[in-house]
């Protein structure tokens, strides 16, 4: 019941906002709908916390500690992003960057995107998971090209084609998985339900599942933005509207990684080896290194933070590849804190580029003097994302590092090198923007205070003290993933 409300709100909002998305109160409606989704997700989480995993709708939905935490995160961040989007999109609308139809389309697709991600998280059917991932891509493709500039259209086309092809590989993987399952379950939907598959994972054919994992890795890996499949990501993040960059980076990448991890559990069970883990570690490490060195060369502010997202998804992938309770715990925490931190950064970056009417970093200056919240918010976010204590990212990276030293010492130097280079690059680029005098081209705008402050508080709290319910939750999720 609560599941249907959770998914239904978004779907209803999509249809409603498609018609009234440009009315005066449409952004508020967008916030209210996202807020309702968040409330429903909290109720769902509480019932999972009390009663354990839920299977409902004839096995169509499956909710356990792992996916419910991501669902709450998705609903929460989509709510705060909707609050940010209210002021941000009003400025864009008044500057004529987007028109009447554009606004309606924007609001409708925003809700559809959230719906697709929640469906991907909560479904038990691996095939439906694929469909929802594809739907999430399709909903955001035309949002990336919302401004209709040549660069935006190019970025959207790249996103459409690369993710379309990438995710097609994942469908092939799904076919192979179903092939292996059919030998046990026979014909029908039963063979695609994750709960059934994980129960018999050790009886699935190892050769077929290894082959399937390669296709899943390439397919969902493209959506996670892992190097060398990452080419669409910096373009799509830099050319779309900033609220979309925030949710793409903070949420969609997480959902894609979630899909990959679900599959990995099955493959590990079938092959009784660590092969899938090694593949993920190599992809993750490569992403960390390539992205951190690419950070140094960026001129566009949103593009730079897009590379930072690749780096952090690399870290999380590396952690899940490592396996073991400590690294998995670190990986789960990292997905959470990266999502919160990166969206904070995108909120402030969006306002900063609106104040200067450009995304070129060389033209942005004196943010702290111009608008303390934007300036300090950006500094705060960068300090946090670079992995300085006492923020959340430090905790998760420290856990992953500890596990890496213990279990994969050979990989550790590269991991550290990547983090160090990213740290240096980010500070070199951001300091001149935050400090200095207010330049002539800076115009004051009305900014969204609430989401930035709320996110900053959460990141700080998560770094200093992990609430008991959250750590228990992660322990439950770790138990599901590590066997």
């Amino acid at each position, binding site marked *: 019941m609560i599941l249907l409300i959770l998914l239904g709100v978004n779907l209803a909002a999509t249809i409603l906002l498609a018609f009234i998305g440009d009315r005066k109160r449409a952004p508020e409606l967008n916030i209210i709908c996202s807020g309702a989704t968040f409330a429903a997700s909290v109720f769902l989480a509480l019932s999972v916390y009390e009663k354990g995993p839920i299977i409902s709708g004839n096995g169509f939905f499956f909710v356990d500690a792992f996916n419910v935490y991501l669902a709450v995160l998705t609903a929460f961040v989509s709510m705060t992003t909707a609050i940010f989007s209210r002021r941000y999109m009003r400025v864009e609308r008044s500057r004529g960057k987007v028109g009447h139809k554009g606004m309606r389309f924007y609001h409708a697709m925003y809700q559809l995107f959230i719906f697709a991600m929640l469906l991907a998280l909560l479904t038990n*059917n691996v*095939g*439906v998971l*694929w*469909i929802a991932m*594809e*739907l999430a891509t*399709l909903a955001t*493709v*035309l949002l990336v*090209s919302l401004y*209709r*500039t*040549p*660069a935006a*259209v*190019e*970025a*959207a*086309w*790249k996103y*459409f*084609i690369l993710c*379309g*092809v990438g995710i*097609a590989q994942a*469908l*092939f993987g*799904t*076919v*192979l998985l*179903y*092939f292996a399952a*059919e*030998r046990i379950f026979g*014909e*029908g*939907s039963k*063979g*695609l339900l994750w709960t059934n598959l994980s129960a018999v994972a050790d009886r699935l*054919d190892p*050769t*077929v599942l290894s*082959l399937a994992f390669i296709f899943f890795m390439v397919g969902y890996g493209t959506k996670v933005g892992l190097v060398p499949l990452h080419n669409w990501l910096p*373009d799509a993040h830099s*050319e779309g509207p900033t609220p979309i960059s925030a949710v793409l980076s903070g949420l969609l990448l997480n959902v894609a990684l979630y899909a990959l991890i679900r599959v990995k559990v099955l493959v590990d069970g079938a092959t009784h080896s660590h092969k899938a883990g090694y593949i993920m570690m190599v992809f993750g490490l490569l992403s960390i290194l390539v992205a951190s060195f*690419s950070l140094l*060369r960026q*001129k566009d502010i949103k593009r730079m933070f897009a590379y930072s997202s690749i780096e952090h998804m690399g870290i999380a992938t590396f952690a899940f590849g490592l396996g073991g309770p400590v690294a998995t715990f670190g990986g789960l925490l990292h997905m959470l804190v990266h999502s919160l931190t990166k969206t904070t950064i995108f909120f402030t970056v969006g306002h900063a580029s609106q104040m200067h009417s450009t995304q070129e970093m060389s033209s942005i200056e004196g943010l702290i003097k111009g608008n303390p919240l934007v300036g300090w918010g950006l500094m705060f976010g960068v300090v946090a994302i670079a992995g300085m204590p006492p923020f959340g990212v430090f905790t998760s990276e420290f856990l992953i590092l500890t596990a890496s030293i213990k279990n994969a010492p050979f990989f550790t130097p590269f991991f550290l090198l990547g983090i160090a280079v990213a740290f240096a690059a980010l500070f070199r680029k951001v300091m001149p923007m935050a400090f200095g005098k207010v330049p002539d081209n800076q115009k004051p705008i009305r900014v969204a205070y609430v989401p930035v402050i709320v996110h900053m508080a959460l990141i700080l709290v998560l770094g200093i003290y992990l609430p008991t319910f959250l750590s228990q939750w992660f322990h439950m999720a770790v138990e599901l993933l590590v066997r």
Partner: protein
Amino acid sequence: MNVSFAAQLNSVLAALILLTAFGLLAQRRIYGLLHIFALQGFFLSVSTAVVGYSAGLHHLYISALLTLTLKVIVLPYILYVLIHRLRIHKEVEEVVNIPTTMLIGIALVIYSYHLTAPIRELSDFITRSTLAVALATVMLGLLMMIIRKKAVTQIIGFLALENGLFFAATSATYGMPLVVELGVALDILIAAFIFGIFFFQIRTTFDTLDLKAMEKLKEEE
């Protein structure tokens, strides 16, 4: 129709699908591409029906019908209308080195057979030998997307790739569950509308549907 006849018929259809995949690689005229694509969809649909008949699985008829409507009628029609509206039906694409492309294609087919060998040993379906063809169709679609530089041809390559996936589903597993097949079909339909919108966006922004114009977003040296 006995089982071995059905298996043979299915192999012939698989060969025809592979042939059309190569045809797409070599064809330079846009209408020609469209016809070959529709033909591929038709073979796919017939093959699905044959498998459904010989294995006695009635849900495959629905999936065959779905393929017939979507891949043979709706998508080619949408593309046809788009091509007409955009006035690009007379364009001939410059494709360099068709012989080399064909050779790469053949290598990909052999590689697909190599890759699917362990699966063929496991399966006892009549369709098991066609899984390699399905994977080859996927890879040939991918190859087409890499070498072609026009937006419309890339999309046709993408849809051919999707055909390969459908074929893989019927040959490896006698079709995915109906929920999944319907969902995938819905996604493809949405994708069709999106690329339709895209063609117009690209045309109005760049004055051409040649993707060579879109090379602005790169890492600067």
